[in-house]
């Protein structure tokens, strides 16, 4: 993609990775972008770089605006290789002795990626770099989402270069939020749910801190996806909402199955939840990518997990998902476990143990069935789902929309009437 002037003398010079589909285990169905920015003032500054294999594109983009050798300073907001992978090429081209600005942890972490003895200038929050007419102010944002992460703020133009914060894995023809509209929010939410969720407390604190700085925020430029310029406050507000982790009145039934028995249970449980008036979705873990499932779980109140027992343990995809979810530390959830087994049936207890470790309150005792669930068992599954749905509807924050369902909707209850 050609470079785009995003403000007078400020250019987006990064690249689009149209065809990436697996970003370190995160499904990127529409690709991603590695954004980098060039500020041309009395001094010329490059903010961030791109993945190693896109170094030529980045250099070509820069060369369409200025001779890369004329870059005076390079700024690394984040050490991760999608933003630093081409630094060796860039520094070689720009000049190995040019100052490389980063956080204190950035200097440590970059040195663990690159053997070059670069001219590191470690900066802390509030430190400034005068470029001429414009000034960059740095803000350390440790653990959002690496220890080295920082933001750079271009005061005169009101542009916040926010590293991975406010990013989205999305590659399309658009450069700005107003060109894509609301469709971008689902990608921003997926990014938050899968990359940032465990640091929600930090992010909330940081946003309050930035609000106190009374910045004149006109544009937020993340390192992935589109630039927020129509209403940067909107994504900031969305982050504040997401940080609170107040789940919606919905559930997700996550399962895998070997001979469709656990699947039948999942369908009946899901139907029961919906009979209580709570939206829910059965998600087969070999059909849905773990990062899609996590996005669904992120704003669901109930996480219902089902696994067959395989060789006395969990089915591997379930173990994968539970491990993934645990690391992201979701809050304010209820859960339950179910599954079919042949002879030993350990899986349900194992799921319950994991959910309890994650401080997910068990809404119902686990439900097991041996081999193929018959009608009576499926009715029990429906009732199990219905009770979970009722618990979701009754949860604090479920609001006026709650309690649509009544026991009369439950299949078991209906059967009793017959």
């Amino acid at each position, binding site marked *: 993609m050609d470079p785009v002037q995003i403000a007078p003398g400020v250019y987006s010079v990064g690249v689009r990775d149209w065809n990436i589909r697996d970003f370190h285990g995160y499904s990127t169905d529409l690709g991603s972008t590695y954004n980098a920015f060039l500020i041309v003032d009395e001094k010329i500054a490059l903010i961030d770089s791109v993945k190693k294999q896109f170094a030529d594109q980045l250099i070509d983009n820069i060369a369409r605006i200025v001779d890369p050798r004329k870059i005076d300073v390079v700024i690394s907001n984040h050490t991760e290789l999608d933003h630093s992978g081409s630094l060796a090429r860039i520094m070689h081209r720009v000049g190995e002795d040019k100052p490389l600005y980063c956080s204190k*942890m950035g200097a440590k972490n970059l040195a663990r990626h690159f053997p070059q003895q670069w001219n590191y200038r470690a900066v802390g929050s509030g430190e400034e770099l005068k470029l001429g007419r414009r000034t960059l102010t740095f803000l*350390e944002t*440790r*653990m959002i989402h690496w*220890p080295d992460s920082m933001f750079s703020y271009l005061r005169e133009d009101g542009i916040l270069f926010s590293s991975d914060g406010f990013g989205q894995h999305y590659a399309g023809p658009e450069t700005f939020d107003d060109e894509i509209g609301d469709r971008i929010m689902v990608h921003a939410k997926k990014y938050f749910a899968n990359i940032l969720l465990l*640091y929600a407390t*930090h992010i909330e604190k940081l946003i309050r801190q930035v609000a106190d700085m009374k910045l004149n925020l006109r544009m937020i430029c993340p390192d992935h996806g589109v630039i927020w310029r129509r209403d940067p406050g909107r994504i900031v507000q969305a982050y504040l909402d997401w940080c609170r982790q107040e789940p919606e009145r919905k559930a997700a039934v996550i399962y895998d199955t070997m001979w469709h028995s656990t699947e039948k249970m999942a369908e009946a449980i899901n139907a029961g939840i919906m009979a209580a008036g709570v939206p829910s979705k059965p998600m087969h873990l070999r059909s849905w990518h773990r990062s899609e499932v996590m996005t669904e779980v992120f704003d669901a109140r109930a996480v219902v997990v089902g696994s067959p027992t395989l060789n006395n343990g969990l089915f591997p995809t379930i173990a994968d998902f539970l491990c993934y979810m645990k690391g992201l530390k979701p809050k304010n959830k209820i859960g339950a476990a179910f599954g079919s087994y042949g002879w030993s049936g350990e899986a349900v207890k194992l799921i319950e143990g994991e959910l309890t470790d994650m401080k997910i309150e068990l809404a119902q005792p686990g439900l097991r069935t041996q081999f193929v669930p018959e009608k009576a068992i499926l009715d029990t599954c429906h009732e199990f789902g219905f009770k979970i749905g009722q618990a979701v509807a009754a949860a604090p924050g479920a609001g006026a929309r709650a309690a649509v369902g009544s026991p009369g909707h439950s299949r078991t209850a209906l059967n009793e009437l017959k």
Partner: protein
Amino acid sequence: MAKYVCQVCGYVYDPAQGDPDNGVAPGTPFEKLPDSWECPVCGASKADFAKEA
């Protein structure tokens, strides 16, 4: 002397090692760290640490 784990990033403070990069001598128990001490990896405060189980 007990080890303490940073609940934010997982860094383990080992009193036997101290945190020499930040002026904490080996042999300093966690309780004796100054209140201004921060996790050397992620910058979390002392309050963000829990005793290693």
